[in-house]
């Protein structure tokens, strides 16, 4: 059998230790792909090509499959997010109750749409299929705090408050 050496992490960064620990816990099994990607995502906040490549090599999973998994699940992001996160619910109830208007207001005020980040890395906007609070539609989750029955003005002032703090 060929001698197999686990590849070295792409950078000298302490956070890779956490990722390696996760890999070791699963015995570098290809099945651990999602858990390991979770570890990378929570350690670095996003998955760049370099880390995807490293995970693929270490777990011996084809690159294309790693990319497929990383883009399939909403939890993973391939671009670094901003300091503050605004998750807009795009479920049916929220959509009918005015999510498009909220998005237009954000576009006008901050110049970003869904899945985008402001140039100063202060704010990111992402979407969720349904946050399970349809009674409060339209719902937006700002830094893990849910806000319901939002009007475009409410949302913009809330986001300004958060980003200018």
């Amino acid at each position, binding site marked *: 059998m060929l001698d197999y050496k686990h590849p070295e992490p792409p950078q000298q960064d302490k956070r890779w230790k956490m990722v390696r620990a996760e890999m070791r816990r699963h015995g570098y099994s290809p099945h651990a792909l999602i858990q390991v990607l979770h570890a990378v995502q929570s350690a670095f906040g996003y998955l760049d090509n370099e880390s995807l*490549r490293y995970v693929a090599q270490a777990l011996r999973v*084809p*690159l*294309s*499959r790693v990319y*497929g998994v990383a883009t399939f699940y909403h939890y993973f992001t391939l671009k670094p997010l901003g300091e503050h996160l605004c998750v807009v619910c795009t479920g049916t109830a929220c959509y009918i109750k005015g999510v498009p208007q909220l998005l237009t207001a954000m576009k006008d005020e901050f110049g970003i749409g869904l899945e985008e980040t402001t140039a100063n890395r202060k704010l990111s906007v992402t979407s969720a299929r349904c946050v399970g609070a349809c009674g409060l539609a339209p719902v937006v989750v700002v830094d893990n705090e849910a806000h319901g029955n939002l009007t475009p003005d409410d949302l913009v002032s809330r986001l300004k408050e958060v980003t200018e703090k």
Partner: protein
Amino acid sequence: MDEQPIAIKTLTIDGKEVGARSGDTILQVAQEHGIWIPTLCFLDGLTAYGSCRICMVELEGNNRLFPACVTKVYEGMVVIIHSPRLEHYRRVIVEMLLSERPHICSVCVSNGHCELQTMAQLLGVTSVRYPYLMRKHDVDASNHRFLHDDNRCILCGRCVRVCSEIEGAHTWAFSGRGVESRIVTDLDQPWGESESCTGCSKCVHVCPTGALIEKGRSVAEMAKRRQFLPYLTVMRKEDAE
């Protein structure tokens, strides 16, 4: 050593009584007996995938529809291949496939050699009742021999399967989900820069539409040659045994 006797099941497909080995799928049995069931994502030699839903059939006594390519036969099964409900669903599926990407046969390099087009004709699709989504997809011409055009892709997954199952390179995979789904090479990098692609052209030849094509061929020459596939599968199986 005594060989396990093969259990024989008898069933009715489209009013015809047929015998089958247990473990066979409805589609296998139908093909052995020369009964045509429309398929799109299925390709002999690759694992059945059940994604296109064109091969859906009715089973008597059951209200659900079953994909023939992955449903195993059982004793006394009564399979209905043609019914107004099935014909309607199949047409709707083809129409939705056509409207999902800008499928316009008259300007397509695979015009006349396209399985989606053929299927539409066989099922009597004369018009598409849904508005075309007309999403813009880039064409990847970075590979020096082949071209990848997402605008013609129906996400049947044949390229993905042939690349991982037969070639073993696993260059292709699906990325994204739902309407955002696309096939990608490696980390969504240009095909020509892919490190895993061996340039074997199997994906090009199993592609049912003009999504993967050979460069430098005209519309009339764009026939796909996939005779290799059943041979490769059989030879590999013999090698393994």
